[in-house]
């Protein structure tokens, strides 16, 4: 019997786990995919929004602003790239200036620093901005985060502090039995005193396993382009058009790795698992982005992808116990600005909703930090060579495009958080993220995984069950 089972292993689960790992409680996370952060937490804009946009008084406003404030410290403790470059919301028509002023007022109500820029100021700060620019709202606290390591490192830190994780375990049913819950999964039956439903796109389905629920989580797809990193800077801030009912619009931003991201579209759909891209939608994304930023070099495109926002029909995050049971807690409908809100949501759920149920004590030896990931290229040549003298693997390059060494790969494989698939390793280390998209390094990575886990190369998975890269031995 666990004290707490968390259903879902995305960024929200990772930060709830981390916050719960401070307490003398047993926590188990069940994730149906083969890695944490493998669905919505992976495929999004990777923005730490400042918080000027959510309606004041909502949970979105509260947790966004709080999460943004926590982010620098969290990212420092968890060794996650976070570049607080600031965002600009761009007005392209005269009548949009009034909308910027309204947004500024909303931002101020939310306690977010923001100021209006003239067209000339914008042009000086963003050389590639459309000549039609009329002004912008600058929010200096916004930034870009590495969403892959944010989730993974938060979960790793939670595991270092005692949280358990089971990957590839899908919850099929949840039942209240006496004073605890029985959770039927594809691997057996689990028991816990408290259940936290952080199942993302499927959180409505999980919630309805214990009681009828009125709210729904609807998948809203967003499609993106990724451009290679190249100099000089295409944009210097996160650039948004003015938000509409359909969301924050097509943004153009750099990422923490120096790539550029253009997107997302906004498409309602019924299928929660459909993350496919289509040519027509992407051509619209391209056209819309080019209205805001001139000269986007789409020739540098290295990937297109889509993710699904877990959009609640309540228009706000759902973070509360179920109607019937105070020990079944829904943390659902966490769409944008979910990524930036995640540390604040985790803290709130652990400290306000869960710990009081157990009257739990804090651990004395809780460690907020993970062991730092050594990145040879961020060291001086002397430090780097001292490292290589001790461990030659840091001098051997595996991924040419992103310059990832064998030492970094082996480090990622040997952490408390499992890293079993090619995709998981890609998300931890960036091996395969570059312009050749794993063309050169994927075979090397595949053999390294097989060797490390002492399995046949035929059994190495790209990500999901059945995603084996190799079919059989040659004749």
């Amino acid at each position: 019997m666990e004290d707490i089972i968390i259903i879902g292993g995305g960024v929200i689960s990772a930060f709830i786990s981390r916050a719960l790992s401070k307490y003398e409680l047993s926590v188990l996370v069940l994730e149906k995919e083969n890695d944490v952060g493998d669905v919505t937490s992976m495929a999004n804009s990777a923005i730490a929004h400042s918080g000027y946009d959510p309606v004041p008084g909502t949970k979105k406003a509260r947790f966004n602003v709080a999460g943004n404030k926590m982010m620098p410290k969290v990212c420092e403790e968890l060794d996650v790239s976070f570049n607080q470059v600031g965002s600009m919301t761009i007005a392209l028509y005269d009548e949009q200036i009034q909308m910027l002023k309204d947004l500024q007022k909303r931002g101020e109500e939310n306690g977010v620093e923001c100021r209006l820029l003239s067209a000339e100021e914008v042009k000086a700060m963003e050389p590639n901005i459309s000549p039609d620019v009329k002004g912008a709202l600058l929010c200096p606290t916004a930034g870009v985060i590495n969403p892959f390591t944010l989730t993974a490192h938060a979960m790793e830190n939670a595991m270092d502090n005692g949280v358990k994780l089971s990957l590839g375990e899908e919850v099929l049913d949840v039942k209240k039995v006496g004073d605890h819950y029985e959770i039927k999964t594809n691997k057996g039956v689990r028991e816990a005193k408290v259940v936290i439903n952080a199942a993302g796109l499927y959180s409505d389905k999980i919630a309805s396993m214990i009681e009828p629920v009125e709210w729904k989580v609807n998948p809203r797809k967003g499609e993106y382009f990724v451009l290679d990193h190249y100099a000089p800077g295409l944009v210097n801030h996160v650039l948004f058009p003015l938000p509409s009912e359909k969301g924050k619009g097509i943004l153009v931003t750099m990422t923490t790795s120096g790539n550029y991201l253009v997107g997302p579209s906004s498409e309602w759909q019924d299928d929660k698992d459909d993350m496919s891209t289509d040519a027509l939608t992407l051509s619209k994304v391209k056209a819309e982005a080019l209205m805001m930023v001139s000269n986007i070099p789409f020739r540098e495109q290295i990937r297109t992808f889509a993710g699904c926002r877990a959009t609640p029909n309540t228009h706000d995050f759902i973070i509360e116990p179920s109607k019937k049971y105070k020990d079944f807690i829904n943390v659902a409908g966490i769409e944008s600005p979910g990524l930036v809100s995640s540390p604040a949501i985790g803290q709130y759920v652990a400290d306000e909703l869960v710990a009081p149920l157990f009257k739990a004590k804090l651990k004395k030896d809780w460690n907020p930090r993970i062991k730092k990931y050594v990145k040879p290229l961020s060291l001086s040549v002397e430090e780097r060579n001292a490292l290589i003298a001790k461990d030659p693997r840091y001098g051997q390059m595996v991924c040419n495009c992103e310059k990832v060494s064998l030492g970094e790969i082996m480090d990622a494989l040997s952490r408390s958080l499992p890293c079993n698939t090619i995709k998981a390793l890609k998300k931890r280390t960036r091996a395969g993220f570059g312009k050749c998209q794993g063309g050169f390094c994927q075979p090397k990575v595949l053999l390294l995984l097989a060797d490390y886990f002492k399995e046949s190369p035929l059994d190495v998975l790209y990500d999901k069950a059945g995603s084996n890269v190799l079919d059989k031995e040659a004749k």
Partner: protein
Amino acid sequence: MLNKDLVIIGGGSAGMAAACSAYDNGLRDILILEKGPFLGGILNQCIHNGFGLEYFKEELTGPEFLTRFVKETEKRGIEYKLNSFVTGISPDKVVTYTNGEEGYVEVKAKAIVMAAGCYERNAGAIGIPGDRPAGVITAGQAQLYLNEYGYMVGKRVFILGSGDIGLIMARRMSLEGAKVLGVAEIMPYSNGLNRNIVQCLQDYDIPLYLSHTVSKVVGKGKLERIEISKVDEKMQAIPDTEISFDVDTLLLSIGLIPNNALLDNMGAAKSSTRGSSVNEHMETSIEGVFSCGNVLHVHDLVDKVVQEAAVAGKSAALYVQGKLPTHEEVINCVNGEGIGYVVPSRIDLDNAEDNIELKFRVRKPTKNCDIYVEYNGEVIKKAYKNVIIPSEMEIMKLPKNLLVSGNGTLSVSLKVREAK
């Protein structure tokens, strides 16, 4: 910091040929840096034959071809380092490489030959619509898995793009027992060599769908199905022309791109090939830095790679020996109508040999046409072509004496002859 007369980046066919040529022209202090565990680069995985017909006048496999150059390199005692990856080159030609034994090492080079080859265009670059499952893989990667590691990537295969690697893999995987259901090519003509269309597709009854592309990829974990569609003249899929194939593997043979990031980051001027702009001595816009082989422009035959690399190696030797003076006056070479690109981008007439080689590819297959070379608007050479195709790189020799002054623009273009 180490000092070298010449550092060659890449130990494939281009790098070795450049090194041997530099040696034969008097240089001794040469270092080849190769990222892989062997010399020979991509030829190590090209176990089919067809190499060397032009250069050695006999038909060799990739490993046989490269072995001859390894012998030549070793015979000359040229130093090379394996598993050594170049991370950067400073503007004053300090090359930084790393390996497990030495760590990061800086080498100050008097001259550099870039011979780093190319990489394969992939699903991300063209944004194939649909899901992103395992099983969508570049043809060269599937070739590596099969020929070097001994594993097949699938049983039922479709191939997008009729580039040579894709055609060769169609045959190779068929021989290994896979069912290859077809090849789709977005252009109305094949992009592979004719001999490969015959020997790899027709001999195995594999259909070639011209003017078709993959319009949908379906599969959550592993690829389950693809759809191909006919394309219109703007290369857009035409609705309701879909043909569906149940496959576990989609091989991509959709082009090769020069792996030129090191020179781009140094600030070397680019050309329309996505490689660097070079003159007739294969010298980039940065003095003493030369480029050759597939990192400059993608070649059809390795025979032409080693010939070009020999020019780069010789030029690097001349440069180090102070025999390659720089001149302000240069001729700019441009691609005119019907021509995709021209190498070199510039000609320095004073340094040029008696015959200047112009290399180019046409944009589309054309019959009964003339190639025109114009210099400052005047036709200085014309060559009739019965048939000319984009998959073959053309080399035209231009006598230096046709260029009267060292200043102006030279253009290569194609004109179809009127039917009689």
